[in-house]
């Protein structure tokens, strides 16, 4: 099995180098010719012919360093990357993107040209720092320097390609200074290079090619969400982004744009501008989750929809979501990685706006082929994936009863003893159910008398959902009343129908808190004034007494 994987692997590599694995929408003959002319390409084709004999060579010719590396690999890496390095370890089926298949010597993050091998330093960099946005952790603190070097030696032994001369990194040049005009030029080049076809016009990863994207192993792969630089596999600085634009991400549909510079379609500086523009789509610092979402008290009217500009000034709270892996069927490949929550109230009504990224408004027939690929990739985890697209979903969970007690319902849907109160929204039909939950998936709709209103909006790869409800409940046995000044536990669940997700197979959050600001009590202003008056009065009294005594002393001295 491992042997045949490796052989098709080598074949796949030479295919990739003839341009077959390149960007699906860029089929310029120039590009193909450029790739064919590479001498490495011919070497690759030759190597593929004699893959079996070379594999045998690998077993006998391990260097001492590689032998030590094998010990480290077998202890720490094998269960994901597989005994033969084919990326097919026991944990592989529980991850998307899958672990790297070393037998193809095709590495995403490099400093070398597209189709070239990585340098040793490139491989060390990934081992040391890991790959954000994937399951690959940073090993720099766990393994010693020597162990990590030995690992590189062993990883290289998985492919005969590394017997060729060491590759040389590309020339990076220097980043031009940043400016508003530079960003505008970056945007123009972004459009010229058609980055939006995969990454979306606003960079949310929702381009029209999205459903067709596959890696060289035929697994579905998502275009990066350019507005979340902390999930970029190969680093988030402008330099990191520029380097990836130059080198491409081998094994994925992300091409190299070096040939576009060589063909003088764009300049090197323009590519730097693209990198700067892409970086500008994300905040400077990655968002940090905070325990409490604060709903400010507003005096004017509440926002009247998710597109209302009144929301622009309201603070956003970042709530990370992860796959539901607690109850069957578990879900290891969630699409929704976070929701951003905003909240305001006017003393009688609460308004929430929840924003999250989702590449489609499900169900969307365009995404059927994506779902089919997901279903093929996810078969062995807790039963097959539903092959019919459901709607997109967002559920907000509160305790069924609000008390000052520290005890809460179980964060994953409550239970019979301690039920939860839910707002369940789905995209198709666009509807919201209010009701009670007594365990994950055990939902009883409230039926008549619901008080929650909602408005949903899908735009540029993201959902925005506004929800409003009067603070006081019309029926406290079915829905709790909210009150300012009390911390209300709140949790979020999301599902992307086009990814085969449902309520159980979706993304979940822990309990957070929602706090409705109280009107500032008068004592906040009165007490400081009282303290100031008292202190000032005391000071004046002390001065007055000291001066009286002094004048008394001087009169008595005079007499």
């Amino acid at each position, binding site marked *: 099995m491992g042997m045949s994987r490796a052989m098709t692997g080598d074949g796949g590599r030479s295919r990739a180098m003839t341009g077959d694995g390149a960007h699906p929408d860029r089929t310029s003959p120039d590009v193909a010719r450029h790739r064919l002319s590479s001498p490495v390409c011919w070497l690759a084709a030759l190597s593929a012919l004699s893959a079996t004999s070379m594999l045998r060579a690998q077993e006998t010719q391990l260097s001492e360093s590689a032998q030590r590396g094998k010990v480290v690999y077998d202890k720490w890496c094998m269960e994901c990357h597989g005994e033969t390095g084919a990326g097919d370890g026991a944990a592989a089926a529980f991850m998307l993107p899958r672990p790297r298949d070393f037998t193809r010597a095709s590495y995403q993050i490099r400093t070398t040209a597209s189709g070239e091998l990585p340098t040793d330093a490139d491989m060390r960099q990934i081992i040391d720092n890991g790959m954000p946005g*994937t399951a690959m952790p940073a090993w720099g603190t766990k393994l010693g320097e020597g162990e990590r070097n030995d690992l590189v030696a062993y990883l290289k032994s998985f492919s005969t390609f590394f017997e060729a001369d060491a590759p040389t990194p590309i020339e990076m040049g220097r980043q031009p200074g940043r400016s508003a005009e530079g960003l505008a030029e970056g945007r123009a080049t972004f459009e010229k290079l058609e980055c939006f076809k995969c990454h979306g016009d606003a960079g949310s990863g929702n381009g029209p090619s999205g459903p067709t994207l596959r890696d060289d192993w035929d697994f579905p792969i998502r275009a990066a969400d350019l507005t979340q630089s902390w999930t970029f596999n190969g680093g988030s600085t402008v330099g990191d982004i520029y380097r990836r634009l130059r080198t491409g991400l081998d094994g994925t549909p992300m091409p190299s744009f070096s040939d576009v510079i060589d063909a003088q379609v764009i300049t090197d500086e323009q590519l730097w501008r693209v990198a700067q523009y892409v970086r500008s789509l994300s905040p400077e610092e990655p968002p940090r989750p905070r325990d409490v979402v604060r709903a400010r008290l507003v005096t004017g009217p509440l926002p009247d929809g998710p597109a209302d500009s009144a929301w622009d000034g309201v603070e956003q709270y970042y709530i990370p979501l992860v796959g539901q892996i*607690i109850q069957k069927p578990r879900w290891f490949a969630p699409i929704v990685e976070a929701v951003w929550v905003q909240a305001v109230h006017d003393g009688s009504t609460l308004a929430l706006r929840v924003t999250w990224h989702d590449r489609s408004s499900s169900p969307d027939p365009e995404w059927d082929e994506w779902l089919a690929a997901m279903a093929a990739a996810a078969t062995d985890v807790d039963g097959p994936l539903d092959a019919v697209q459901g709607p997109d979903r967002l559920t907000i969970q509160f305790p069924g009863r609000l008390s000052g007690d520290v005890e809460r*319902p179980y964060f994953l849907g409550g239970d019979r003893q301690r039920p939860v109160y839910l707002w369940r929204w789905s995209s198709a039909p666009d509807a919201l159910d209010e009701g009670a939950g007594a365990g994950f998936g055990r939902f009883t709709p409230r039926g008549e008398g619901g008080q929650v209103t909602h408005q949903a909006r899908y735009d540029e790869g993201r959902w925005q959902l506004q929800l409003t409800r009067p603070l006081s409940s019309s029926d406290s046995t079915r829905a709790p009343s909210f009150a300012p000044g009390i911390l209300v536990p709140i949790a979020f669940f999301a599902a992307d129908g086009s990814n085969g997700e449902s309520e159980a197979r979706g993304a979940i959050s822990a309990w957070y808190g929602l706090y409705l600001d109280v009107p500032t009590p008068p004592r906040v202003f009165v007490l*400081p004034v009282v*303290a*100031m008056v008292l*202190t*000032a009065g005391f*000071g004046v009294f002390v001065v007055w007494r000291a001066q009286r005594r002094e004048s008394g002393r001087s009169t008595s001295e005079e007499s």
Partner: protein
Amino acid sequence: MSRRLRETLGHPFWQAVLLMLAAYLVIVIIGWVSAPVPRTVVIQYMLSALVGVLIFVSDNEQRWSRFKEPIQRTLVEPERRRLRGALLVLVPALVGFVTFQQVRPTVSAPAALRSVHPASPVRITFRGKAMELATLENSLRASGDLAEHYAAGKRVYYQNCLPCHGDLLDGRGHFAHGFNPTPLPFDGSTIAQLRESFVFWRIAKGGPGLPREGAPWNSAMPVWEDFLTQEEIWQVIIFLYEQTGLNPRRLGVEGEGGHE
């Protein structure tokens, strides 16, 4: 200049001011090098320092009257009217500001009072079968090949535990950031202080099996008896200890946590 400085340093009033400043600096430095000092504790220390300084300046009559002299002059002398006026404005303003800081409404989540390793129950039921935790032992330690148990446990770990507890067994897997409390790290000394039967209970019954003081409603630890067999749990326990190089605490064995 230096004569004036010497006079100032020799004056009990300025000595008292310097002593109070020094006391405050010491507290701040302690806050840097060890844990941050709570504000109430700072106030308490400063009050003690003030009492000490007052005892020092009132220790003899001459020093006491020299100490009082600049205060008295500021209170009465016509040349110092400006300073007096400034103090009468600034001190109340400062008091007002401090009071506002105290009464201003702030919001934070209540401290999570949670016992990480609460006492285990005497007995549990595993898939309907009663088990006495006090006498429960890892049956695999006495039978079969340890390397095989390790390999099997490793597979169990990577297919089930990895997303939260991580490749590095540091509790920082790629899903860990979504949960609160965060998953337990195994690479510290914690699991060396636990008996294998305790670990078995925590895995088999998960978060919902915690007693109230463990805040079972917040824990994302699944109930693994729904997923894993008894043998698989013992295998993954062997993996945890082998991979981290730690030993479980055992009954009656000295040096590994001592007697129960």
